[in-house]
């Protein structure tokens, strides 16, 4: 009934409709084609640019402050088990969590919560707002044995989930967590630092819903990141983050 015809020129696509759809007006859709235009260097519409200007000035004024400098760009990446940016954010949250409560051993965030890359060179306040635009707070949750198991499997099965304080290994299709050399699942309970979004079951981290919230008024995640970047700058350091292979995915035989 319907015949498909590709027109292979410059990535465009077209097909025709063999079927006749009933309608009271004589016009019928007979062909549709589509393409995508990437916006690179091209002219700006002056009306829209003028409309944006006052907002832009205001953003530059309040967001232009340089927090520190970075050795290299830290890109937002999907599809990798571990990313430098995920490690950076979860390390910061673990550190903040430990300031809130000395028993905190672990931090867990969500890959979807990393919203932008960090550039090489100057990192401005606005870059951190783009990285973490949400007003999410750090929350401490105590998980029991069963929830610890669910959490370890969740992280392993959602590759790229940022976490800190644990090593994750794959053994015959199962994920095993180790905290300072000890099996995570051998613990009766673990205190975890995460965000209020995940604490409410966001991204289907349902194990957090079954845990007990110990502290729910921590710093904003964004504030923690800003403070960390300022602190390394004040020590005369530049931002640098490498992979440390905290997760070793299952190898296919």
């Amino acid at each position, binding site marked *: 009934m319907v015949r498909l015809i590709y027109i292979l020129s410059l990535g465009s696509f077209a097909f025709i409709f063999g079927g006749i759809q009933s309608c009271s007006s004589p*016009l019928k859709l007979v062909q549709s084609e589509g393409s995508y235009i990437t916006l690179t260097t091209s002219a700006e519409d002056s009306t829209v640019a003028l409309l944006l200007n006052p907002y832009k000035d205001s953003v530059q004024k309040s967001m232009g402050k340089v927090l520190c400098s970075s050795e290299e760009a830290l890109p937002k990446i999907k599809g990798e088990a571990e990313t430098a940016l995920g490690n950076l954010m979860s390390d910061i949250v673990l550190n903040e969590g430990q300031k809130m409560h000395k028993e905190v051993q672990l931090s867990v965030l969500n890959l979807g919560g990393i919203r932008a890359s960090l550039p090489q060179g100057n990192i401005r306040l606005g870059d951190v707002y783009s990285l973490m635009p949400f007003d999410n707070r750090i929350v401490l949750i105590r998980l029991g044995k069963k929830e610890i198991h669910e959490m370890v499997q969740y992280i392993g099965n959602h590759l790229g989930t940022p976490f800190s304080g644990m090593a994750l290994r794959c053994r015959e299709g199962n994920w095993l967590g180790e905290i300072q050399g000890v099996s995570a699942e051998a613990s009766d309970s673990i205190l975890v630092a995460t965000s209020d979004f995940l604490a409410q079951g966001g991204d289907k981290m349902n194990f957090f819903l079954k845990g007990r919230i110990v502290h729910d008024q921590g710093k904003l995640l964004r504030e923690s990141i800003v403070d960390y970047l300022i602190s390394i700058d004040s020590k005369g350091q530049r931002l640098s983050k490498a992979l440390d292979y905290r997760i070793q995915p299952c190898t296919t035989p």
Partner: protein
Amino acid sequence: MNRRRFLRTAGIASLGMGLSGRALAYGKELEESEWMKINGLTRLVILHTNDMHSHLEPFSEQDPKYPGQGGMARRAALIQKIRDEGHATLVLDAGDVFQGTPYFNLFKGEPEFRLMSAMGYDVGTLGNHDFDNGIDGLANMLPHANFPLINANYRFEETVLSGLIQPYRIVRRGKLNIGIIGVGVDLQGLVSPALTGKLSYQNPIPIVQDLAHRLRSDYSCQCVILLSHLGYSYKNDQISDLIVAEQTDGIDVIIGGHTHTFLDRPTPVKNKSGQMVLVSQAGWAGLRLGRLDLTFSPKGQVQNFDSSLNEISKKTIGF
């Protein structure tokens, strides 16, 4: 695509049908408008974005992934350039306008809606992040949008948005009646319940099916577009644009969002009645503008067009 080549071959192909003989008898190339006029065709150009996430300015030149790309003022100029081609044009957005840059933290969505209004957006739908400042936060921003936001599968009755969000919109362009239906993703696990209050989600498939039929039969729509924030596709059985396309009929085009999907070209999907639906999505952050060209023919020309297009494809790809 190479439009000149398309038109030239189309002109030659049409010669056999006796449709454009005169133009070619004088040995000149057909202009597109002339060719369409001779064949009695109407063109609708749909321009679309999704998941803009408050990226009003282009990405910085230092961005490791999209250096210097995007920007609303550039998009506005591009949209105007395409409007100047003279076809009926629709500009649509598939949701998640809000959240992602300091603009949203500082101004709560006001510049996003004001710039979209200035650019002539016709219709938008709601994404999960459009609720990031709660239902009230969204309701407060609606006065800055001069275009409607539509959604058919959220229940707003017990919220401040009651009466402000319609399930569909009909847009008229000349003799064309275009029905546009809005649908959104299940907000559970995406938006904190404190932000969505008494808003509830419903399965979009039966709703879309019913509305698509009604728009065609009761409102004489010759074209029905689904403006969706469901997501392009998933590894599990979560409802996606590809699933809605397969399990319904009466929809011509799905303009999607949510999954930030970059496609090489829109995906053709066979619907439950064997007709083709074109599923499209334009990445995110205003990095791209999606463009769909739909051609409508008056009665009786489907067969002619079919054979002329066959000719074109033979000439273009050489089979």
